[in-house]
């Protein structure tokens, strides 16, 4: 039994369509900032590289925008863009992996979770890999592994420095142990890059966890992160379930990692390009 009754029957209710036409659609024009809880106009956000103009909170940014932002004049050459997974396990869960790949392709316009490109940064030729978190959580399977390894090989061949911008939940479950072995493959290639003394800067962005953190993301000559990014090996929920305690405030955020000695610096997005250019000048100038 309810205390309040409708004062008119449902059939007399104005139709939903009429209701909607009375209002101007604002859906999708505004976004609430996770940092300051204020409402931000999305166009302002996009014009500011997805950083909140009010509080400086860094929203995630897509792989292509990231690459445009880093290369001089937004000018670059993309490699291996057509490389795509052949579904080694024939993996099926609530929907087949091939369908998931297709959906991710439609959403992002990419064939897998990484863009590899070459161009100039601060006037110097560099290789940049940028991960796309909207593509199955930015997870790493055979394609991501191969594209990064090839980028390292290009770096080695031309002695041009390497930047990898990580944004990933880790190894891709749907490719099983094949994903796992990509960690070895990439790290072995990084061993060669290290031996050849070609500089590599790892940029960790929100989120960088699992097999990506536990391989190339932690192996830069410099490891730098954007403010407030979640960075860790085990995910916070897994840790909470294991130790059955609440996690401390700011745990596994960039600033926490700097404090514990795991990162060289936290670098805001707008200063990232200048920071990388200066570092490469320092390492490479004769």
């Amino acid at each position: 039994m309810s205390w309040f009754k409708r004062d008119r029957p449902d059939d007399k209710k104005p139709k939903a369509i009429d209701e909607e036409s009375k209002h101007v659609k604002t859906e999708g024009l505004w976004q609430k900032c996770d940092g300051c809880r204020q409402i931000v106009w999305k166009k302002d956000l996009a014009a500011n590289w997805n950083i909140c103009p009010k509080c400086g909170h860094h929203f995630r940014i897509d792989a292509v925008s990231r690459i445009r932002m880093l290369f001089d004049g937004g000018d670059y050459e993309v490699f291996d863009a057509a490389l795509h997974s052949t579904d080694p396990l024939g993996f099926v869960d609530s929907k087949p992996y091939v369908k998931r790949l297709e959906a991710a392709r439609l959403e992002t316009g990419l064939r897998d979770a990484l863009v590899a490109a070459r161009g100039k940064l601060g006037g110097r030729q560099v290789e940049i890999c940028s991960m796309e978190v909207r593509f199955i959580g930015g997870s790493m399977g055979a394609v991501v592994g191969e594209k990064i390894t090839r980028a390292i090989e290009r770096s080695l061949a031309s002695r041009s420095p390497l930047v990898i911008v990580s944004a990933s939940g880790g190894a891709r479950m749907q490719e099983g142990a094949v994903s796992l072995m990509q960690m070895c493959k990439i790290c072995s290639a990084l061993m060669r890059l290290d031996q050849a003394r070609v500089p590599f800067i790892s940029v960790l962005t929100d989120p960088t966890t699992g097999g990506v953190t536990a391989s190339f993301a932690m192996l830069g000559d410099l490891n730098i992160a954007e403010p407030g990014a979640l960075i860790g090996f085990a995910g916070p929920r897994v840790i909470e379930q294991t130790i059955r305690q609440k996690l401390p405030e700011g745990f596994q955020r960039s600033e926490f990692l700097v404090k514990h000695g795991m990162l060289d610096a936290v670098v805001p997005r707008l200063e990232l390009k200048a920071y990388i250019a200066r570092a490469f000048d320092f390492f490479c100038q004769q």
Partner: protein
Amino acid sequence: MDPEITSDAPAPPELHPAWKRVQLARHPKRPHSLDYIDRLFTDFQELHGDRSFADDPAIVAGLARFDGRPIVIVAEEKGRNTKERLQHNFGMPKPEGYRKALRIMQLAAKFGRPVITFLDTTGAYPGIDAEERGQAEAIARNLREMARLAIPVIVVVIGEGGSGGALALGVGNTVLMFENAVYSVISPESCASIIYRDSGKAERAAAALRLTAEDLDQLGLIDTIIPEPEGGAQEDPEAAAENLRQALRHSLLDLAALSGEQLVEHRYAKFRKMGNFFA
């Protein structure tokens, strides 16, 4: 007619073969690293500590002799009973464990001794302290530095190859895997809780993940499957150890022909072509 077939009572559900293997790989009586070390090596001298923070008992490492020849062993140890399991933190290494492992593998490289590693862990320890001290960095560094070792490295998956926590000792010239061992990117339980939102569906996840020795062999990710006695290694640990002994002898002999430089190259080439599942 067979009365069992006509009977109305439902037959007990048959476990998926992959899930059976997971059960065997985790069997409480399954031989662990120390069981094999006792049976296969002589003069075992355990070495402790990472020289910067602590000694992690989840990884047991040291000098030993195999067929009289000096080798270095680095192994994940789960423990054989409750007391031992607690002492070894259930075989879940922390960063200091991986750093100890690397220190001792580099010691082996310095003096030209082959390294044998045993993989047997649910995974790297997921805790606040492990994160603070750089669990990810420790694993990552091992992957890169193992690629550089100019000595033979033989990896044996003896039980559970739990994701990055196992892989951190897994960059070998030869990767051997016991018939009932499993090697996976994620535990079937965690996989099930992500894709089916129900960790109880681990059996289905185990099948989907293709984590058995046969699967990994077919995917070209391991070199040799070591046979186990009927019913699993726990039924006859002596026989399992004997099979491992033969496999280790073969691998060491094969790798003895290669120079340090060739060994590094051999390991690189092996992992470089792994998982070419793209077009």
